[in-house]
């Protein structure tokens, strides 16, 4: 996507809360979901669809809540530790999940995420059960901020991370490891014959995607102020895949475009109608049938790939 357009878009997003202050919360949440959708998109490159990525989203958010309860109070530390936590869960789960393909990969991811969800929902004394855990406002580099100031810091930090992490993932996808992912989708056995260990390639991709989802979850936890098990429910995972596909999996901006588009549309639509799911479902079907490269695919040049 031409850099100038991307820069202009980021600038517009950065300035929007000046015009409409409550939009800041919506946009922060959109960026968080965009990270998670990016994680899903990375795996979709390899043809692996995961209906369980909400688990990493929730795991990092819970990690933030647990660390805060244990006394860790610094924003940077909380973010880094929780993302590492999400990546760790990803490594553990991925080590046996990446052996499967297609439907079985999807279903095993679903199973693991639902076990996680059920544990979070039922262990009332540890995780607060369905009531969830609070996420207090942390200090930023030692400075204790009021709630509104912290939320602004969070928003601009997420925006900055979106750009930086986005560039990093872009580099990753264009590296040999990233191209190997598309190769797995095309013909995995040929790749094995060429001497590239598919299992390792996929595991790295899985950990990267789990870390991305974890980053999204941590940001969402801070933005909302509360972590609930619903973060990990299977329909949440489905929504992440939906965002990835809507935005377009051909490139990094796709996930964020999809997330921003959906969140803004959602904010506008709830004032008018209750049937938000209906609209999203129809949009999803229309996009898959007639715009398989997603919204991003309309902008990008021929390197964009679709489903």
């Amino acid at each position, binding site marked *: 996507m031409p850099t100038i357009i991307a820069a202009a878009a980021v600038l517009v997003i950065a300035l929007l809360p000046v015009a409409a202050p409550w939009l800041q919360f919506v946009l922060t949440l959109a960026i968080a979901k965009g990270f998670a959708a990016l994680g899903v998109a990375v795996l*979709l490159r390899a*043809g692996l*669809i995961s*209906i369980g990525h909400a688990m990493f989203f929730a795991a990092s958010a819970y990690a933030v809540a647990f660390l805060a309860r244990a006394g860790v109070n610094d924003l940077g530390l909380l973010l880094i530790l929780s993302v590492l936590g999400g990546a760790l869960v990803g490594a553990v789960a991925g080590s*046996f999940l990446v*052996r*499967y393909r*297609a*439907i*079985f990969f*999807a*279903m*095993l991811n*679903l*199973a*693991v995420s*639902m*076990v996680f969800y*059920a*544990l979070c*929902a*039922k*262990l*009332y004394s540890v995780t607060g059960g369905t009531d969830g855990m609070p996420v207090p406002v942390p200090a930023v580099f030692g400075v204790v901020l009021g709630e509104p100031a912290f939320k602004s810091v969070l928003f601009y930090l997420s925006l900055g991370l979106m750009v930086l992490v986005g560039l990093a993932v872009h580099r990753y996808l264009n590296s040999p490891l990233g191209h190997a992912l598309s190769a797995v989708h095309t*013909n995995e*056995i*040929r790749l094995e014959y060429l001497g590239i260990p598919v299992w390792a390639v996929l595991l790295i991709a899985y950990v990267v995607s789990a870390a991305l989802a974890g980053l999204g979850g941590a940001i969402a936890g801070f933005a909302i102020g509360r972590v609930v098990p619903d973060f990990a*429910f*299977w*329909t949440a995972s*489905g929504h992440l*895949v*939906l965002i990835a*596909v809507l935005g377009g999996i051909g490139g990094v901006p796709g996930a964020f475009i999809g997330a921003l588009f959906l969140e803004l549309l959602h904010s506008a639509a709830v004032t008018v109608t*209750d*049937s*938000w*799911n*209906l609209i*999203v*479902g*129809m*949009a*999803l*079907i229309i996009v*898959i*049938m007639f715009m398989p490269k997603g919204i991003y695919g309309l902008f990008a040049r021929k390197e964009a790939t679709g*489903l």
Partner: protein
Amino acid sequence: MWNAIVPLLLDSLASAALIFFAAVGLTLVFSVLRVLNVAHGSLYSIGGYVAASICLFIASRQLNPYLSFLALLFSAVCVAAIFGPLIERGLVRWTYGKSEAVQILITFGLFLILEDLQRVVFGVQSFYEDAPMRLLGTTSVGGVVYLNYQILLIAMALLVVVGLRLLINHTRLGRLITAVVTDREMAQSIGIDTNRIFIVAFSLGVFLAALGGALATPTSGIAPGLGADTMVLAFAVAAIGGLGQIEGAALASLIVGLARVLAIYLVPSLDAVAPYAAMLIVLLIRPYGLFGSVTARRI
């Protein structure tokens, strides 16, 4: 706790029967069409809503309450007749030959649409119509009072297992279905109308789901969100049994039912975890399910 053995087993069977209805349609549709229908749970709840509505209508008009049993069956047939061909021809057919991601996403979109459609048509309050349950009365087993309706559910589930097996092994339609399942291209090339088979198989799957929902309403309430909860349970059972295996689904329902009931009796705080933990354990040992088999990978 030994006095609880009999109630425990009975509860497991009753629980398993309901779960079986939710899962068997899913696994059947997968075996014939090779499509995992994420909207299956919504069809279960639509069946429940239609059945509850008809039963409430019967009650309000003071008609013979025994009609409500017929209403349960009738509502499942209606839902299957309307939604089956519509969804298959309109949406699912488009996904044949495309990647699994496309199939899952299309049916997920359908799931979202159906969930809101239910809210719009049936409202957002919960329904309850228990005439069929009350009519059948109760029996006492080992000091615990059970509803005869629960026993009816177990009987109906057995009927479905046997019926499906007879259908597939001893009827012409069953042989056509087996042919299509074994080798779709070959079946087409010898002149079998695969499109018609697909519609029939899909509608049968919808019928079984709607029947499950309808049979569940007299003993449970129905409210928005039932579709989503049922879906993941159906997934779990279908996966444990092996996608496409009907007896597998029956055995898996027993396992999941038993797991859940054991949890409630012994470790109540883990009752919701049990089905998914069972799914995880089985899939780790046998990734293709208990009766599933690996299909050859083509180079």
